[in-house]
């Protein structure tokens, strides 16, 4: 059997990779991609804890579903924003979208 720790380490790794993407990519769409990875890492954890806990308690799965929904919403809004920004400023480089400053 696969121990729980494997799943957790796997999820942590995926999370870190996603985070790296979020922090490092210039392209706003790519940042969103990184966020998707991170969300998935979380979902893995949720599912793993469901499986390794009492399977009759559906909390883990329920929250995984909700995370799906949130992720969908987030992508929809995020991409809309990216497109809107792109339309106005003709760029999707996160560094160049820096109006929100001193």
């Amino acid at each position: 059997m696969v121990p729980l720790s494997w799943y957790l380490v796997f999820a942590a790794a995926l999370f870190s990779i996603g985070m790296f993407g979020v922090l490092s990519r210039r392209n706003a769409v790519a940042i969103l991609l990184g966020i998707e990875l991170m969300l998935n890492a979380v979902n893995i954890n949720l599912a793993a804890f469901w499986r390794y806990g009492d399977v009759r308690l559906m909390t883990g799965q329920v929250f995984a579903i909700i995370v799906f929904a949130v992720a969908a919403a987030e992508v929809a809004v995020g991409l809309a924003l990216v497109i809107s920004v792109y339309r106005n400023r003709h760029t999707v480089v996160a560094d160049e979208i820096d109006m929100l400053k001193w």
Partner: protein
Amino acid sequence: MTTETLIWLIPLPPLLAFFLIVLFTNKSKALSHTIGVGAAALSFIGSMVVFVRALGVEHLGESPFESAVNWLPTGDTWFRIGVLIDPLGAAVLFFVAITILMIFLYSVGYHNYGQPAGDHDVKGLPPHGATITDEHGHKHVVPSVEPMYSRFFAFLGLFAFGMYTLVVSDNLLTLFVGWEIMGLCSYLLIGFWYGKPSARDAAVKAFMTTRIGDVFMLLGIAFLYSATGTLTFREIFTEETLHALASTPAWFGMTTSGFIALLLFIGTVGKSAQWPLHVWLPDAMEGPTPVSAMIHAATMVSAGVYAVIRMFPLLTADYTGHGLTVTMSIVAFIGAFTALFAATIAVAQNDIKRVLAYSTISQLGYMIAALGIGAYVAAAFHLITHAFFKALLFLGSGSVIHGMEHGVLHTGNHHVDPQDMYNMGGLRKKMPITFWTFLIGGFALAGFPLVTAGFWSKDEILADAFGHGHLAVFVTLAIAAFLTAFYTMRQITLTFLGEPRTEEAKHAQETPWTMTTPLIVLAFFAVTYGWVGIPEHFPLLGGLVPNWFHEFVGSTLAEHPEAIEFNPIPLLTSIGVAGGGLILGWLYYRNVKSVSEDKFQIPLLKNKYYFDEAYNFLFVKPAYWFAENIVYKFLDKGVIDGILHAFGPFTQGTGSALRNYIDLPVINRAIGDGSAEITYWFGGKLRAIQTGRVQQYLMLALVTFIVIGAALYFFVLA
């Protein structure tokens, strides 16, 4: 009506007259003088009824008419005021009532009632005469009526009220009330012609000088009240009270009774114009003549002596009969000294009224001296006779002046002073009634033997002084008596005898009946009143008429004074000085034709020993200087306000120091601005991280999260 009720009512008519005239009738001269004279007559009638009833009471001294009501609540007790008519009061009431009525009557004529209003008369100045055209078309200048005629009667009424109050009082406080009301009236009446600066100043001087005495008197009253708990005469003059007062030592080596008596006496010194507070009285001649008579003869100055006579038991409470007490010595000294001192000044005066003024001072000194040596009855006797003949003389002099003013109006030469005796002469033919009555008054004043009242009363004082061995007093008074006779004769000679020295004197006129009637009435008393007090052992006359006065007034005292043994020496002295003075006066002055020939115009005497100047220099000016420069400018404006004003700069200084050294640098700059600057600096530095780049924010958040999380983990959880 009971006698007590009547006594209560005696002072009221003049008071009512005052209010009626002031409030309602002041526009009408006739109504005003009717009310005034009517009120005086009512009081006169009341007084006479009381006097007659008093005569009918046996032992009036022990059981006088008295009645009192609660007046002032003082803690748990009441201060009562009331009326009292004992023999002394009755005797005084008698002469007061007569003279007051006479003066009221005289005023009608004196102020030219019935004459036209003056051409240029203004309120506050004596009338200057009016021009009228007679049926032949000739223009005459005649005397004009006083513009403030009604007011005069109002003031006289108030004055009369004061005097009556004083006389009928059964206690020292209401006596003082009457005393002060008279003071006010003398102020108002002396300053009646307030338009004249001299009159205005004389009024203030009179009030202030007497007030000096009054405050001492008030203190004396307070002392007496404190010591005995009462101010009612008959409660004070009981054996125990007097004994208690006499045996308690007070200050300056005097007993309490002596000290209180001295304080009260100072009041008299002011009121009766004794040295050294005599200066106001001659100046008071600025008032209309009836006022002078009122103040000097009948009422106010007599009130001073009356007060001392009233307080005689207190004055002599510690007197054992051997050697005068301190207080009595002072009283005797001041009286005798004043008698002589004023007489010397009178010799050198040329103003007919001023001579009388100094004569009054001198005669009051007589009475005071008599009281100082314990001659109670003699003093009271002289008080009354003097009131009659001095009122007579004043009114007579007023009549003379009035006659002279006629002359002045006739000639139109207003530079002639109608009061200067050297402008007169030979008036006996022009003004016979005035002359004869004045002669009677003058002789009474001089003490012309046997027939005049003045002789009997003055003789009694001299006899008392001699009989009790007060030789110094006796000699002083004898000399004063001589001078009195001398200046009296001088006055008569210069005024009435000889030939007129001026045109004005030639045209002088006898005065109307309203003025001469009072002269005649008073002349009657100036002669006859002496007969009620002829000593029993007097040669020939003694015993013909009982010595009623001594018996009657003497019974006021609990211990009836003994009549003095007859002694020819004072009698001869008295006859000698009076006769000698009169003869010398006549001999010398019948030849004097003008001022320059008068050898007695000695500057020192003429200038009244320079007392006015000295007082002005010593008291009046320094007082004002002290008030203005020390109290007001130095103390109030300088020191106190200076300190107050120093608060301003001090506060401002403190304030600006706080501002400049604390608020501005420390609080504003360092704390206030400093914190802002620090924040600004930090903000400036920190804004570098506000790049607006999402990823950098995130990184920063993560770094922080990791650092804090690690720190928490290692330091808190572990």
